[in-house]
């Protein structure tokens, strides 16, 4: 298999997107997006519905006309070119296989368009099928394949033309959970083996984190943050990114500079931090975002030991497995907390929140994100 794949080389191409603007019938959808995609990288475009991630992908491959801006592939602006002249291969959410053709005809179509001899097409498709674990499927009708097999054929069809750039438009959304997991690893492994530049659109956070080297979080037609999965997860650049990456608990705070450092007040609790611990928190009214697993429950009179200890009341309890999940009312908000010990609803507790795991943003910015 290794020998077969060595005959395929899809040296990845670099893409530079410069101030890209797209509008649908006068309504702006992308407001000047600028991004760089290095050769051979796997980038995930992540965002909620309507954020413009699919529009960005479709404008890259030429299905959506660009209002202004440039798409540079190898220093050539491809924005004015029709889709067939851009040399980018796309894998579609609906597979988009041609039902009147066999697997061989589907996968060999791009090569046939390039005038390759039949023997070469057959050999290339056989090698790709071997790589995708579908050896001997050449003469099958695509309508006789399962969802996972169809998506493999669609991937093979895109890879057959040795594209420098592979565009993936939510290719795993139509698959069931188990096959989706397998396909994540397969697509990632194939991308790394071939060295192709991949851009993957998804609204599934975990999928983006596990597959990509780099995440691009999009919000309302703009890039909200670009970074490695760790950067985006641990150091979100905005309240929106923090919330989108799963820090769904919101705690209103007051941050004040004191002589020795910073004082953070929340729901009657105060914690004093030295300047080393609280490097650049915004001062004044602020909002902290944190994940369910960051806080824990403690006794109302427990020792803070440097953590923020907010008094609260347990409102509800559920057991999703492993840990108990509590809804706690604290500082006027409902906060979700996972904790190993069992408490009864109605009990007064305090929320222990390590301050270094809070994502703190000015209150005005948080209002915008909401």
């Amino acid at each position: 298999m290794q020998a077969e794949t060595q005959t395929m080389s899809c040296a990845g191409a670099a893409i530079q997107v410069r101030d890209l603007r797209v509008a649908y019938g006068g309504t702006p959808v992308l407001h000047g997006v600028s991004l760089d995609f290095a050769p051979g990288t796997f980038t995930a475009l992540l965002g909620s519905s309507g954020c413009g991630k699919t529009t960005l992908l479709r404008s890259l491959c030429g299905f959506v006309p660009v209002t202004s801006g440039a798409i540079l592939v190898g220093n050539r602006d491809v924005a004015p070119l029709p889709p067939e002249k851009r040399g980018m291969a796309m894998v579609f959410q609906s597979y988009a296989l041609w039902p009147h053709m066999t697997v061989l005809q589907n996968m060999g179509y791009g090569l046939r368009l390039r005038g390759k001899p039949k023997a070469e097409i057959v050999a290339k498709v056989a090698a790709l099928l071997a790589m995708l674990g579908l050896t001997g499927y050449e003469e099958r009708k695509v309508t006789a394949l399962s969802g996972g097999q169809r998506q493999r054929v669609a991937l093979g069809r895109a890879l057959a033309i040795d594209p420098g750039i592979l565009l993936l438009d939510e290719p795993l959304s139509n698959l069931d959970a188990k096959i989706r997991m397998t396909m994540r690893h397969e697509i990632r492994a194939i991308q790394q083996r071939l060295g192709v530049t991949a851009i993957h659109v998804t609204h599934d956070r975990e999928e983006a984190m596990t597959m990509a080297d780099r995440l691009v979080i999009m919000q309302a037609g703009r890039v909200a943050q670009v970074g490695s999965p760790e950067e985006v997860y641990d150091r979100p650049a905005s309240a929106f990114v923090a919330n989108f990456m799963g820090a769904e608990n919101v705690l209103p705070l007051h941050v004040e500079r004191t002589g020795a450092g910073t004082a953070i007040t929340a729901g009657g609790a105060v914690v004093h931090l030295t300047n080393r611990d609280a490097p650049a928190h915004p001062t004044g009214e602020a909002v902290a975002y944190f994940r369910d697993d960051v806080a824990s429950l403690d006794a109302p009179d427990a020792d803070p030991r440097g953590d923020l200890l907010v008094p609260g009341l347990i409102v509800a309890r559920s057991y999703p497995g492993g840990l108990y999940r509590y809804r706690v009312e604290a500082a006027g908000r409902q906060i979700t907390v996972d904790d190993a010990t069992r408490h009864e609803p109605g009990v007064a507790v305090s929320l222990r929140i390590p301050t270094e795991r809070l994502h703190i943003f000015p209150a005005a910015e948080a209002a915008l994100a909401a």
Partner: protein
Amino acid sequence: MSLSQRQLALLLIAPGLALVAALFLYPLCFSLISAFTDPDGGFSLQAFAKAYELYSGDIFFTVVIVVTSCALTALVAVAIAGTLTLGENPWIVGTLRALYRWPLFIPFIVAAQCMRTFLAKNGLMNNTFVSLGLMEPLQAVSYLDWRGIIATFVWKQTPFVALLLAGALAALDRATLEAGRNLGASRLRVLIELALPQVLPTLLVALVLSFVTMLSVLSVPMMVAGSQPTMLTVDMAFRINAYGDYATANALGVITYLISAGAAILYLRHGMTKETAS
């Protein structure tokens, strides 16, 4: 209870059934029997022999006219439906979409009359060419012959075929067409190699229906091309109106049935090979 319900059901469909029997089945059987009966009342193929002797040329002419018209209709309809589906110029697509259906609402007899004034020797088309200086008046020829019939049929049936075809193309998963362009196919190749094969059954149904319609039109061959050779509908009308010769007219009718059955069989056979293949 169930028996009385069955009787009630029969009673309910009886008027419709009677209507079909009286207005369709009876005349059909009558003309079939009449085609195979000699003047003395016995079985004979005499009417067919006469029909063949007098009108074999017209049978051939009819088949050629209808097949050619169907082929041209398919070509123009594919061009229109393809432009509507894959066209990128909104002005062209919008204009075409607004205009292409109009001939659907014009009866054959009116279409034939329009073509008479358009295609005649001193008709609108030749006059326009002359006034544009593209042609000398002496060069003008009349197109009111087989070419006129084909032009009328194609003009009248194209919207129908294009309507069905555009509907089927619009129902396709657009990603299958985008995938083709993404891999490097031009719009024409996408239409011919990827879109049309997916809607071929619809195109065939539309063409078979058009084939049968064209076979049964009397007004167009009568008005557009009066002279010999002509189509079988005109011959049938002539046998009945001029000679009261129902036997020969019915024999020509049976031949028309057989020609349309041929088209239907071609369609069914295609459907069956497709089913066994998939």
